[in-house]
């Protein structure tokens, strides 16, 4: 199976280890992983502003880069959600809709498509909290949202439970938004920071040593908050835990 790896811009520059872990993890499952070199951004930051005009170019390029692959896998829920649900600043040709439906977030790809049952190479002997992003929960159905009355499921948690040594600690407010929200984190700095601090304090109350997430963008914000507040806590991408590194 030949798949294409979609590495969002901030992972590329700030969290390359999350990208590397994703790449290696997919190879471990015998996939042929391509990384289209002309990729930039899916257009989400502009589209979330409502700025269709400026997101169109990025969206066009995204489709160009990722056409023709069986699956396109991105280790980032919010970017994948954009591609799947909101990549509509350009005409919806067959090629565009094809790319949109073939794009998967890493956890859902591992859980739903590969139906992984074990990560024998992974061990992680820490107490950790899981942060599923809102985009992944309500946009990609990676977990049952707490406010929706249906049977519980949580795909990230199911995968992490296969990792030896890992102790997942539940939160007081399990799927409360952390306040990142893309541009929101700077345009609405005060509210965003307060939400982030409340989130980090929740982890602290559970005595979590690590915070694990399929979305590094939320963690970039949370990590910045924790560092500024002098809270000693580590933030890593779920791919690093499932792949056994790099840390």
């Amino acid at each position, binding site marked *: 199976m030949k798949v294409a790896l979609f590495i969002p*811009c*901030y*992972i*590329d*520059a*700030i*969290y*390359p*280890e999350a*990208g*590397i872990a994703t*790449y290696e993890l997919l190879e471990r499952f015998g996939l042929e992983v*391509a990384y*289209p*070199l*002309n*990729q*930039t951004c899916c257009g989400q*930051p*502009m589209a*979330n*502003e*409502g*700025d*269709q005009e*400026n997101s169109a*170019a*990025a969206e066009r*390029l995204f489709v160009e880069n990722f056409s023709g692959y069986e699956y396109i896998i991105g280790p980032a829920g919010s970017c994948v959600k954009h591609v799947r649900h*909101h990549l509509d600043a350009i005409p919806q040709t067959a090629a565009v809709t094809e790319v949109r439906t073939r794009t998967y977030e890493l956890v859902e790809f591992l859980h739903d498509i590969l139906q992984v049952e074990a990560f024998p190479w992974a061990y992680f002997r820490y107490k950790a909290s899981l942060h599923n992003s*809102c*985009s992944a929960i*309500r*946009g990609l159905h990676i977990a049952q*949202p*707490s*406010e*929706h*009355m249906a049977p519980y499921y949580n795909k990230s948690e199911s995968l992490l439970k296969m990792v030896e040594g890992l102790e997942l600690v539940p939160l007081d*407010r399990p*799927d409360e*938004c952390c306040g*990142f*929200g*893309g*541009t*929101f984190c*700077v*345009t*609405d*700095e*005060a*509210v965003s*920071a307060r*939400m982030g*601090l409340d989130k980090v304090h929740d982890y602290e109350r559970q005595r979590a040593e690590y915070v694990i997430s399929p979305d590094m963008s939320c963690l970039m*914000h949370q990590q*910045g*908050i924790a560092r*500024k507040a002098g809270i000693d806590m580590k933030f890593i991408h779920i791919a690093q835990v499932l792949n056994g590194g790099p840390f």
Partner: protein
Amino acid sequence: MAKQRVDVAGNAASFIDQDDIHEPVHDKNLWAARMKRDAAARAVPEWEDLRTIASLIKEHTLTHLDHYLEMFEANAIKRGAKVYWARDAAEHNQHVWEILSARNIDAIIKSKSMLQEECGMTAFLENRGISVTESDLGERIQQLDNQPPSHIVMPAIHKTPADIAGIFAKAIGTDPNNTDPHYLNEAMRADARKRFLKAGAGMTGANFAIAETGTFVVCTNEGNADIGASVPPVHIASIGIEKLLPKVSDLGVFIRLLSRSALGTLATQYTSHFSGPRKGGELHIIITDNGRSKRLGLDDFWHSLKCIRCGACMNTCPVYRRSGGLAYGATYSGPIGIILDPTFDESKYSELPYHSTLCGSCSEVCPVKIDISDQILKWRKVMAAKKYLPISRRLAFGAAGKVFEHPTLFHGAETAASAAMKVTPHFLLYNRGLNPWGRHRELPHFAKQTFREWYLQYKQTDKDQEPQQ
């Protein structure tokens, strides 16, 4: 035009920065309401089915609204109510004024009505010498403090008991140091009693209006709407055209949803059904449009008319809980406010759709399944297309768009960590002067080697395309 734009982010920052009490307590109390709502919803096995049914009943009614409005009117008249039609706030207020002045009424007592709030009715009547008293405790607190309600069902939830003790001390002479809610409530009860007995008319809104019988339903916990309707000789009800439901049996669905969604209670203490004037009284019904028919014609936004004003979206909204409702500077606050307020004034409320992380929880709690979160994003598109965005924001995204459009520009800028700051998190840092990222957060550390560089060094094989340079 730009001057009167509501700076919701700035207002929210002031709410947070005022002290260490208001925002945390506000957040805690509303989160508690959300948790109670979850427990109440979980106890109803058919909860999600009920949401779907309620949503469809509302959509059915709204897509046949002319029919149901005429049916409601005919049945209400048949039962002895006098029915008026108001195209906008001015006509609504004029009807009220004419009813009151024809009967020489100079004092009214009113219960909570978001529509009357929308119409600015209290100020209108006060300017004409009519004394208006809010009878809902929370609304009364807000009235005495010269503020609009900050929440649809908990109007003074942004205030602490100490704030309220201070307001009551000035207004009705209570002990400013006694913050006991029981004491404060008792004092206001005694004050309101006199006003109920003096009032020449009682005014209410309506939660639902039933076409098949001409009945309207008012839900309260205090019983204040019922006193207003049963004690003064005249009852005036303001009803928005979107409140219609076809049948009495629909209430079985909606009453089960309303209070469970709002406060996590099984129902409000009083669910009152008015079908015509009470014995010895008059009933006036003002059917009001005020922008609703126009909203019905907006393909992307007409579903917002399904709203039953429960406030569940506000309680669950993590942004609203940290902002306080007054930050929105509008009649409606929170997620539902974000999608309703721009229909009244796009320019004034152009920043509201950005006061959201698009987390989506509002859409999931909504008892009538309004796609609130999606509509927030759609409003952003409207604001961007109509150039309501501040120039700084537009330029930043114009620049980012250009860079993301051109791989060479992107990768050239990104490779060196110092230059990467200019592009990758551009959308995080564009407002350089204030550096809002850094006030409460450390900057992320840039990696020595990007993923792309790692890939080119270790993984690229011959079959991959060469990077364009």
